[in-house]
């Protein structure tokens, strides 16, 4: 009899030969995230993953928190494992429910049984009825309520039998590492971390790029982005954060280009640099937090102009979302409180009073001619600092 966490994943995505790849990756990810907590074994049986540890000091609560942030997991349950012997099951049922009633004031319950092992003498309805009666006889305070019980007592009879009453929703999505790699343009704002999270959810590994304009912005702005990358990396199985020194480029643009085009030209440079970094790291696309019409640089016209700066696909998972919808996700994934810290990022200092909202690509290309593009980008990429966030 031991403690086990049962991990469920959505089989709908797992078709044909891919199934194994997904399952193996998910198991590797679980092992990676949980092994710092102690010795852990991760096994699979009948499309379920079981996390077990014989380590006395294993932190089960932290393990559940970490599992909730691993993509590809549909739900998890902390379970009690017993041998598939009816007397043993009954004994463990008493012990488990007794413990539960000391903690929660439950009044009603029902039993749901699943028999995977057909050699077991009782079938599922029989287990429900018999075990339900046994529970009623032993806990006079409890009543059965099949429609709206305070708790459901689940019994799964397989090679071993698993008893549990809690089903905790997982992060859903696909296991990180099964979907290639993308490079996220990460600012200190609310949107870009959410955009990164949404792409990562589809199994994509994330690299992040941050443009730093010291001393025009504070090093606190950089610390804030590092902190955001740390929060994201709990979902992404680690992130490489590329910190690009961007001051010189901004100064040159500010000095040489018409002011209403500052932001859009700056955005184009960011895309170009991100693409260079993405190519080097083997990314297959760029990710931004843009949403149509949110600010001047995110109109359809502006996006056409920034998109034109790169040949790689640009993924914009927030493109059709309202700010409040983005904020809701940011709160759920814990990036919101960090995002709203007030340190200026590079976008807020070099801004024209009236940035152009309908930029023309032709004009942009014309204005950019005065800049030594190759030289500026080479230098920025060369001086980029990489922080590995685990």
């Amino acid at each position: 009899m031991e403690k086990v966490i049962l991990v469920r994943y959505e089989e709908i995505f797992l078709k044909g030969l891919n199934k194994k790849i997904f399952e193996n990756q998910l198991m590797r990810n679980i092992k990676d995230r949980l092994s710092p907590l102690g010795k852990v074994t991760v096994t699979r049986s009948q499309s379920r993953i079981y996390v077990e540890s014989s380590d006395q000091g294993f932190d089960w609560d932290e393990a559940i928190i970490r599992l909730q942030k691993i993509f590809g997991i549909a739900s998890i349950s902390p379970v009690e494992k017993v041998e598939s012997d009816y007397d043993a099951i009954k004994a463990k049922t008493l012990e488990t429910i007794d413990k539960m009633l000391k903690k929660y004031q439950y009044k009603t319950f029902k039993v749901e049984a699943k028999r995977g092992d057909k050699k077991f003498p009782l079938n599922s309805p029989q287990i429900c009825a018999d075990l339900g009666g046994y529970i009623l006889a032993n806990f006079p305070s409890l009543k059965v309520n099949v429609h709206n019980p305070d708790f459901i007592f689940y019994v799964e009879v397989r090679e071993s039998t698993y008893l549990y009453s809690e089903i905790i929703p997982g992060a859903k999505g696909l296991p990180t590492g099964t979907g290639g790699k993308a490079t996220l343009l990460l600012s200190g704002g609310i949107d870009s971390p959410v955009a990164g999270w949404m792409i990562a959810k589809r199994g994509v590994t994330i690299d992040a790029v941050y443009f730093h304009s010291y001393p025009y912005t504070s090093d606190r702005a950089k610390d804030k982005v590092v902190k955001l990358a740390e929060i994201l990396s709990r979902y992404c199985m680690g992130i490489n954060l590329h910190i690009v020194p961007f001051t010189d480029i901004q100064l040159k643009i500010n000095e040489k280009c018409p002011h209403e085009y500052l932001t859009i030209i700056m955005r184009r440079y960011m895309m170009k640099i991100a693409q260079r970094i993405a190519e080097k790291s083997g990314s297959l696309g760029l990710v931004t937090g843009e949403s149509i019409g949110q600010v001047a640089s995110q109109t359809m016209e502006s996006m056409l102009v920034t998109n034109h700066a790169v040949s790689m696909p640009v993924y914009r998972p927030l493109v059709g979302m309202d700010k409040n919808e983005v904020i809701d996700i940011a709160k759920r994934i814990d990036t919101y409180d960090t995002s709203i810290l007030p340190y200026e990022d590079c976008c807020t200092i070099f801004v024209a009073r009236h940035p152009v909202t309908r930029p023309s690509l032709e004009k942009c290309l014309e204005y950019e001619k005065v800049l030594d593009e190759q030289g500026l980008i080479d230098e920025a990429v060369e001086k980029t600092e990489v922080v590995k966030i685990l």
Partner: protein
Amino acid sequence: MIYFDNSATTKPYKEVVELVARLMSEEFGNSSSLHALGIRAERILENTRRTLAETIKAQPEEIVFTSGGTESINMALKGTAEAFKRTGKHIISSPVEHDAAQESLNALSAIGYEVEYLSVDEFGRISLDELKAKIRDDTILVNIMAVNNELGTIEPVVEASHIIKSRNKKTLFHVDAVQAYGKIPINVRELEADYISFSSHKIHGPKGVGMLFMRKGARLHPIISGGGHERNLRSGTVNVPGIAGFGLAASMKFERMEQDSKTCGKIRELLMERLTASLGPMLRVNSPEDGVDNILNISLKGVQSETVLHFLEMKEIYVSSGSACHSRKNTVSRVLKAIGLSPEWAKGAIRLSFSGDNTEHEAIICSEAISEIMGTVQKM
């Protein structure tokens, strides 16, 4: 390194650090304990109380120790408002107070107190005539700071105290002396305030220590409940080593107050002279001529103060943009707004604040650095 941010906090005197460290390991007793170790701690505490009381000509029993300026101010404002809520709900304040006072007043106003603000001139100075006219029969409290933390302006708190007491004997007066203590004389025989707040770390003492002067007979409702320390006014095991450090810092600071003031004045003058010469119309001095010697607030045209701050930081010169508390809020300082500074000037405001440890040579280096930065930083 040139540290010109002494109004944010100061470097503790070496002697203070040594004393606090020694007392922490040797005299760790609880000043409320009945045994010898507790009694020794209590003696240190009471001796320090006497020392600190003397610096403002107060009686030792008029001093309550707190965790700092913010707590003293909260205690004075919220504690009197609560204690005298049946007398009235009218409070008068200057509009250029530190956040500790401003936010306490906002909290009071949210629960039904009527807070009225005085108008101020271009340096943040209140008008005494207006104060006189605004005091009513139900005015329970007036709150004015002695020295403004952003501009260095000295407020006429002594005159204000006489006006208040002659208009309404029941009206209580709180003075925030956090920036004034150790810089200008504070004498509770002249300044007829009922409550005065002080902080230790602004005068080279340890952080986390402050005091509230409460005139004999004045009362307030404690905001922290507990074991009844500090005559039931401020519960919590007393920070004896920190308080002793505060006491030593105050003694040392008062000994060199005149000398420090001279040094700071010279630095302030040098900076103004040199910056005016090199920057001309790109410079605006926001501090008044007759403010404290250790604060100089200036505005630089066409730049953001945070940018200048980081450029200076690269040269290991540390200053403040407007006020240390505001630099995190990304908005124009409330005080600069209140004195009617235009947004263009307010955006480029920096505060240089000095201590006796600074030198004239540092002033020259700093003024050169600012002039150089103004030449290289691109204007937004």
